[in-house]
């Protein structure tokens, strides 16, 4: 269909320009020598240098990475079990409530999740800090993990498992040698998704954090409220580069596995 070619290419060009122009501008102006974000005054890497001498930002980045790593592990573990329960356990009592608790947090506004978590921590006298953020993040990210892993489980060929069982493998052996290897790509993407969602979260972290546990998005947010600065552009560019690299590596890995 050559007639439809031009509108199609125009749509693609417009769509991708809309999606990527803001990100590209942000990265370009992180190298701006001027303090003004929209006026170009020559190339400079000074904002990257000042970034690393900002002890507060570096400390927050560390906290965020730790929270993201721990909560992603919990989320992947819980999400795997939940995915099996949804896909393989058939009917059980209160299944509807369980399904609802998995799918609702995907869409419920974060403000509600954060507020409710804060109230429960206060009610039980738990002082807020690092671990309450981990718990909050592990809760909403496990739902995303469950959805990713469930999709993979649904597409898996069960005859392999049945064959293993017929040949005398117990359920544990079957799980470890047949199910787990097939599930690994989904587990990796679930972990990555949980990690990135945690790393990016501002709202739930703000409600569940305490003194001494300011995460990177909280730090960025409080600076952004004061105005646009090249230093935040530099910080953002580094984060974008990290995520871009991770996406590239994972797509290369999955292509290798597929071939």
């Amino acid at each position: 269909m050559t007639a439809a070619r031009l509108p199609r290419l125009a749509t693609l060009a417009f769509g991708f320009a809309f999606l990527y122009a803001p990100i590209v501008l942000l990265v370009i102006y992180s190298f701006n020598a001027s303090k003004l974000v929209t006026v170009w005054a020559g190339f400079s890497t000074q904002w990257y240098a000042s970034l690393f001498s900002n002890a507060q930002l570096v400390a927050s980045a560390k906290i965020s990475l730790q929270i993201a790593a721990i909560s992603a592990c919990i989320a992947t573990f819980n999400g795997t079990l939940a995915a099996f329960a949804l896909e393989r356990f058939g009917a059980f009592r209160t299944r509807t409530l369980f399904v609802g608790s998995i799918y609702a947090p995907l869409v419920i506004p974060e403000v509600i999740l954060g507020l409710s978590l804060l109230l429960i921590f206060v009610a039980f006298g738990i002082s807020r800090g690092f671990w309450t953020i981990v718990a909050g993040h592990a809760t909403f990210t496990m739902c995303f993990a469950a959805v990713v892993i469930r999709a993979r489980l649904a597409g898996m060929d069960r005859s392999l498992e049945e064959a293993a069982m017929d040949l005398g493998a117990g359920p544990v052996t079957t799980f470890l040698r047949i199910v787990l290897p097939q599930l690994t790509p989904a587990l990796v993407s679930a972990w990555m998704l949980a990690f990135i969602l945690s790393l990016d979260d501002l709202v739930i972290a703000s409600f569940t954090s305490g003194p001494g546990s300011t995460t990177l998005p909280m730090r960025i947010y409080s600076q952004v409220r004061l105005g646009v600065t090249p230093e935040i552009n530099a910080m953002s560019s580094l984060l974008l580069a990290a995520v871009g690299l991770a996406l590239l590596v994972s797509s290369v890995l999955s292509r290798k596995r597929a071939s």
Partner: protein
Amino acid sequence: MRRGALSGGRLWALLVPYGWLALFFLAPLALVAKISLSKSIIAQPPYEPVFNLSDGVGAWLEQAQKFALTAYRGLGDDPLYLESYLSSLAIAGVSTALALVIAYPLALAIARSDPRRRSMLIALAVAPFWTSFLIRVYAWIAILKDEGFLNLALMKIGLIDTPLTIYATNVAVVIGIVYSYLPFVVLPIYNSLEKQDASLREAAADLGAGPLATFWKVTLPLSLPGVIAGALLMFIPAVGEFVIPDLLGGSDTIMIGRTMWNDFFENRDWPAASAGAIVLLALLVGPIVWFERRQSKGQGA
């Protein structure tokens, strides 16, 4: 297997995630409902417990009646909350409609591209979702400001003489929401378009339908599940959005997420914020249940 009975191993495998969700999702929501019924006291914690956890259900009902929903009545009296709900629904609705208008042609263009390039194109369209939400919203400040990139560009090509005021208005909020949630809308629409059998379109063409008629009668109706999934996936969280109205909106941009946040952190009126959360949840419960049904049945995530 008998309905409702799970073997030992499966029972444990279910209890761990179920227990986690009960502790950190269901119990907190129940607590919000409870606190929304209590009287506001500016103290630490800033609410007066209406009842203790040990009181049981009977006492709960009795107390609930006695306090007669003080916080909810406050919501009714407070025009700020009513206005917040209405303008949140309006802003989220307009944004969702706009996002569909942008996302559908994009998803269609990707679905009709060379099969070898399709997966790369859709990955590119979804990739921004993986990058920081906060940063993507922040990027728009520099574009939309009075002396921002958009105004500079428009003035350079002579379309306008004086800068447009977009930043710190509801227009900026709508742009920010459309931009941030676009990948959520493109992906489900693309999935339903990509699954479509091309022979259906050929059959329609053979039977004399023009490209436009084929689109309205075949392509669009078949892709509606994807359109609905995308719209719900965007609309529900967008209603309660906090970051976007706070960073791109003006002081007159009132959205419920922001109003609750302010009540919570600045006015420290926890019962009012809790009642606000419960009402918001009640507003969204229809769309949320709809979304869940589609997801758990259709399995298309």
